[in-house]
């Protein structure tokens, strides 16, 4: 895996997670998770408790 191209190594490291808490890799993962949770429109994942299209839907609406 050490000789694989960078994107492959990044994917592998994200899958085979060996980093400690409070490292920059951990921060990056936390940001990615929070982005998914907060930006994903509830309607897209059929959230039973929340509705609307969220920030992404708002952006798409104003983009068109």
């Amino acid at each position: 895996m050490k000789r694989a191209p960078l994107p492959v190594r990044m994917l592998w490291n994200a899958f085979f997670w060996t980093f400690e808490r409070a490292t920059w890799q951990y921060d990056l993962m936390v940001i990615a998770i929070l982005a998914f949770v907060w930006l994903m429109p509830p309607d897209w994942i059929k959230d039973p408790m929340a509705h609307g299209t969220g920030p992404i839907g708002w952006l798409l609406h104003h983009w068109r």
Partner: protein
Amino acid sequence: MTFTGLIGTICMFPLRGIIAVCVALRIHPNILTFVGVLINAWAAYKLARGHFIGAGFIMIVANIFDFIDGKVARELGEVSKFGGFWDSVLDRFSDIALFIGLIYLYAHMGRTDYVMVASFAMMFALMTSYTRARAESLIDKCKVGFMERPERIVLLMIGAFTNRMAGVLWVILVLSIFTVADRVLLTYRVLRDQAGAATT
């Protein structure tokens, strides 16, 4: 210092005070663990009723107890093998209670799709702990994978406070599957290498 490190440092300030109070009152750490489970059961009830904000606040209180029990045990010199075992067992009850709260809520709403998502998330959350415990009976250490209990609990709180529980459940499910796979893979590799070293 990293962003998550800074948040951890800030959160430690009030926790130090709570730990000091518990040590001064000589509250046994096993009692703190048990109280944490009872409070988590209350949070589960709130989740089941769809009162996410209330559940979020109760989860904070419950997990303060969960977090400080080990530290209080060290300060009081009450660290024991049974304490570690008791903590692990009760943590599983807390985990299951929260998921059952969500499963009840979605079942009550007639949303079988999210009943299944929450059920699978619960299954893999439990398997995350089981694979590590079982692996560490065979190999030295099996601390790989991102989605451990603290991450799971913080995510459930974020889901509760911001009403984004569905997204949180998907994250817990997918990353718990990866974590279980990581632990199986690591254990396989270490045992294979040990077997290889023994034959040469």
